[in-house]
């Protein structure tokens, strides 16, 4: 079956991405022309709200509603900011990279539209430091857009002006959290902020700001061009649009595909990723990146949309899944993740800063054959005490999702590590827990 794939239609792996002229020739920037000439900012907001576009960064909040909290009108504080969160650092996630490297003008067009909708004055692309290729492309694309009058003063004679800058981070996972990203962008430590006040009213430099994910922003030109109803119909389920799904792990064809929202996990894994490599069985899958709960083969027919995955006991997250096979030690797998999370804790709140290294050390001691049943109880305790609300932001609760579900589905593996005084799986030695 051939589905529409608006976001990736112009992305071809063996070809340079479209430059501005080529992008325009394919209908690019038509949405910007339409919006600034024919639509009020409120109408753009309404169109996006009606489309039921939900944030693709992981939280899944209605994008148009998020925008609607930005103060509008003549007495609104200025400058207002629109920030693209391109700090894609969730382990196992590489969907934004495809959009950034494959069609940068599509992102820019989405950003200009979003900025118009909230009447922003300045916009930033906050890009993961390691995305060097994307950095060069975005820089070049911004320059092209300025030259063509899509950025700068008095865009398309609308009286509205927008500047855009590329900002490359230094490689902290924390910067994916929107308020920590804002602090980093201000040149402060990348620690999260307490909400309220929300970034919509006090964001970058204390001014109204919106932070949207790359994929979210890339949907917007298509919504403006084709309408909310068209966007909704792209999906199999209530959550509208297409979704970039990714698969990594020991499957035959790891990769990323744009598919209708609500495609089943089975279709994704078996048809698109080609199933498990020979001789391996699937034991579990993190459906939306490293900070989501494990699902098991029993959940293969789950539709990959926000609600269905939640019902199955996990989160759609970024929609890019990591598959764990039966030759991989779940304890070692989870240890690897916890090592990452402990290292990426910003050090602001006590539970995350001190709790995650403890968790990591316990998992390592289990792998080294030094763990006990009491240690497993200690892991259980941490999954509860590092839950949402107890910590300052969602990093530690996210880190606990794979752990708590691993303890739920793979407890026997944890217990074997404790009772057999070592890891029953064959794998490379795990080094020290220092970072």
């Amino acid at each position, binding site marked *: 079956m051939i589905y529409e794939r608006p976001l990736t239609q112009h992305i071809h792996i063996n070809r340079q991405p479209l430059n501005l002229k080529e992008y325009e020739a394919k209908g690019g920037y038509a949405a910007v022309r339409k919006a600034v000439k024919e639509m009020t900012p409120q109408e753009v907001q309404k169109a996006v709200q009606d489309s039921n576009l939900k944030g693709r960064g992981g939280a899944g909040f209605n994008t148009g509603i998020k925008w609607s909290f930005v103060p509008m009108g003549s007495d609104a504080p200025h400058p207002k900011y629109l920030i693209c969160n391109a700090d894609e650092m969730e382990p196992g996630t590489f969907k934004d990279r495809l959009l950034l490297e494959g069609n940068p003008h599509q992102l820019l067009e989405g950003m200009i539209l979003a900025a118009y909708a909230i009447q922003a004055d300045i916009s930033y692309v906050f890009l993961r430091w390691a995305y060097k290729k994307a950095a060069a492309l975005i820089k070049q694309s911004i320059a092209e857009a300025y030259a063509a009058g899509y950025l700068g003063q008095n865009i398309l004679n609308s009286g509205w002006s927008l500047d855009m800058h590329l900002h490359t981070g230094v490689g902290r996972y924390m910067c994916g959290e929107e308020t920590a990203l804002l602090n980093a962008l201000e040149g402060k430590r990348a620690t999260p902020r*307490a909400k309220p006040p929300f970034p919509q009213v*006090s964001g970058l430099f204390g001014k109204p700001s919106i932070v949207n994910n790359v994929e979210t922003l890339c949907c917007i030109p298509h919504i403006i061009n084709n309408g909310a109803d068209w966007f909704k119909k792209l999906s199999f389920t209530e959550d509208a649009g297409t979704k970039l799904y990714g698969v990594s792990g020991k499957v035959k064809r790891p990769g990323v595909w744009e598919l209708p929202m609500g495609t089943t996990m089975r279709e994704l894994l078996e048809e698109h990723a080609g199933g498990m490599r020979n001789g391996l069985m699937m034991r579990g899958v993190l459906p939306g990146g490293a900070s989501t709960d494990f699902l098991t083969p029993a959940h293969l027919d789950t539709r990959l949309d926000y609600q269905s995955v939640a019902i199955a006991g996990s989160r759609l997250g970024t929609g890019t899944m990591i598959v764990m096979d039966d030759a991989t030690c779940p304890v070692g797998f989870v240890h690897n993740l916890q090592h990452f999370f402990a*290292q*990426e*804790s910003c050090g602001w*709140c006590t539970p995350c800063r001190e709790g995650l290294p*403890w968790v990591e050390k316990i998992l390592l001691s289990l792998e080294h054959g030094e763990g006990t049943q009491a240690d497993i109880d200690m892991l259980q305790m941490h999954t509860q005490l590092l839950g949402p609300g*107890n910590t300052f932001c969602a990093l530690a609760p996210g880190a606990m999702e794979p752990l708590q579900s691993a303890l739920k589905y793979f407890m026997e593996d944890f217990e074997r590590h404790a009772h057999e005084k070592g890891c029953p799986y064959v794998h490379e030695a795990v080094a020290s827990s220092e970072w």
Partner: protein
Amino acid sequence: MTIYIDNKPYEAKAGKNLLEACLAAGINLPYFCWHPSLGSVGACRQCAVKVFKDEKDTQGRLVMSCMEGVRDGVRIGVEEATAKAFREQVIEWMMTNHPHDCPVCDEGGSCHLQDMTVMTGHDYRRYHYKKRTYKNQYLGPLINHEMNRCIQCYRCVRYYHDYAGGDDLNVFAAHNHVYFGRDKDGVLQSPFSGNLAEVCPTGVFTDKTLKEHYTRKWDLTMAPSVCTHCSVGCNITAGERYGKLRCVVNRYNEEVNGYFLCDRGRFGYEFVNSENRVTQPLIRGRMSEAVSEEELMHELSVLLSQQKLVGIGSARASLESNFALRQLVGAGNFYAGISETEAYLTRLIVQVMQEGTLHSASLKDIEQADAVIVLGEDVWNTAPMMALAVRQAAMKTAANNAAAQLSLPAWHDAAIKELVQTDKGFLANITVAGSPIDNIAQVTVHAVPDDIARLGFAVAHELSNTLPALANADEKLLQTARQIAAALQQSKHPVIVSGLSCVNSAVIRAAFDIAAALNNTHWKASVAYVLPECNSMGLALMQAPSAERIFDSSNANDMTALILENDLYRYLPQATADAFFSRCSNVIALDSIHNNTTEKAQVLIPAATFAEADGSMVNYEGRTQHYYKVFIPKEGHIKESFHWLNSMRIAKNNRSNGHGLSLDELLHEAEIEMPVFEGVHDAMLSPHYSIHGEHIPREPHRYSGRTAMYANLNVSEQKPLQEEGESAFGFTMEGFKGQPPADAAPFFWSPGWNSGQSVTKYQQEPGGAFKGHIPAVQLFHDKVDKAPVFFKDIPEAFVARKQKWLVLPQYHVLASGELSSYTKALASLLPEACVVLSETDAALLGVRDGDKIRVHPGTTALPVKVHLSLANGVVLISAGLPGTEVYNWGDWVKIEKE
């Protein structure tokens, strides 16, 4: 509004957070990152409680109490099991890396982390991995750094950077390697660094001077005292053990210093332990100069019978001692040990304050001001805590504006700072040569004193056109004046800060005119005049002529001079002081430290320092504050000056059986004699005060772990020391077991709260007034209905003279205190004395940085320091540094290249 804590109703104040409400209600709820002066950031997660939707909700929601505002009817669970378990777990997390070094940690026994650990019940260690370790840094002679103890509450940087404006302490690295320190080893640059020791909830930052002679809090003998190092009069608690003063810590005073002290005040105590102390009566010229008290009194009764007896009072001695001297020598023979210029300027200030048409601003008033004009005063160096208050005014005004914008509560620190960004409330800092607070000022002017005064008068004219306009004013000055006036007109409670550091009466008058012009329409402005010494105001109120006036007197020869706690060589040019001593046939000096003046004395009498004395002082605002004896010195001859003076009075009057006046009798006599001091005795806890017949103990109670008083000699308790006369305080741990009156608490302690943070238990609410607060004794009284009398006499614009320079003092925040300079740690931080010249003047004289020049009249050559924004025709010379000379400040001098 009413809130329910564990199902019991409590009254709570709107605008507070749940943690503040719980603490105000007397509930023990642990916390770290929150501080009453710093607000909430929600980092440590220690103050978690449950919030319930309604009475039926048993599940509740875990929240950080510091991050939730009080709402009428809100139901919270402090004792709820999961909240308690979480709080215990937070401590366990912190303890995973905290060393088990309490027995060798300076914080032990007054450690907030210890207190909170016990409070949560965490006692058993389950973490059995290696602890994280850090390298410590050298942070200078005042603060010790031990990073392994850090629990990452972020208070240190929030205090040092955000509150005090320091930029050389920061937070580095991430995850559980977060590090608090400097980018490299080195002396902490802020003169408010000592507060780190109290802000830090554990032993990362500790008092390095205490380390030199360490004593646990529970082994200290403590008393409520008042800082003697500048005219602000910050409240301190001083602690002694085995006859040595061990440390000074903040004593909370809502209206004065709040929770903080400056480094001169905190670390400048060591002079009490100086080897240079006068410990015995001396009669010079005898075979054996050290004499007994009997011999001394015999000698004194001869000397005091001399006809030409004069007394030189002191701006750093207590009201009682100055008054006792005045009574001894007679009002007509009582002089102030200051220069005529200083006496003239302080009299002017007393005059305008006694008018009552301006309110005298406390530090709290300054902190809450929405516009501040610093007119000519180098407040950073002459009254450091006032500079910190000025900074708070600028920050708080911006914070209040931001908070109002989004209806944020005042405690929501990070959110407010985010909105504020770099905004500041209005501050015009007008000084001779700049100040560190220039960087928070909207208007910065560097000018010579006369031009500062002219700017002030121009502002006053802008505010009220009945006041005269400046003749021949340049447009730039007028523009600045208009900008300042516009900001003042918009403000609701502005403060004008001025003082003596310009040595210029027109500056003082202009400051008055600005404030008075503002009050023409609404009574809203207040004024603060900084004075040189801790009791300058007390002495000034006695209306004594300056020591230089003695020369006017016809019989100023063969005098017998009684000099009270005063090194005249610090207040008068050397030639003047020498001239004075040449006219004296007898000099009797009372002082605590040997100095140039005591060298001139035939009779030298050992005076008590603040730590060994009771006494009253009047601070710059006219606030009378009483300090109490911390200990009785081993050297039995050391006594409060007023004691000696009382004995002399008896000896002089030949009343062999007369008894000396007690402190309160002396104060009563002073109040009768000088009505200006009416009510001063109310600042003192009566010597007859007791609670249920018991003294207030100066030492922590029996179960605190305290060892015997003289454990260095004998572990059995000795007979406690007895004071001469009565006192509300006892020198042992025996006495009243409950909470003493907070205003006179020898130390803050409460069950489960051993650290200084126990002060909350003495307050009506965190950061608020004390329970049972006694109103301050203010000697200036506001007269709202009285019309001010404006000055109107505007000086001519400054014109540089040929070959002559106007000489002004340049003070230093740590170095300019006489007594504090005897402290080893502070002495090591003293800058080199120098002469500051403008670029043009330096070129004119053909000198560059470091070249030596000589100032006439004067004796020593000093190195040059070229200043880029100093006006031509004026020089600044380091003042108050040990060994530096006193010049005729405000007069003209000649300069020659060495």
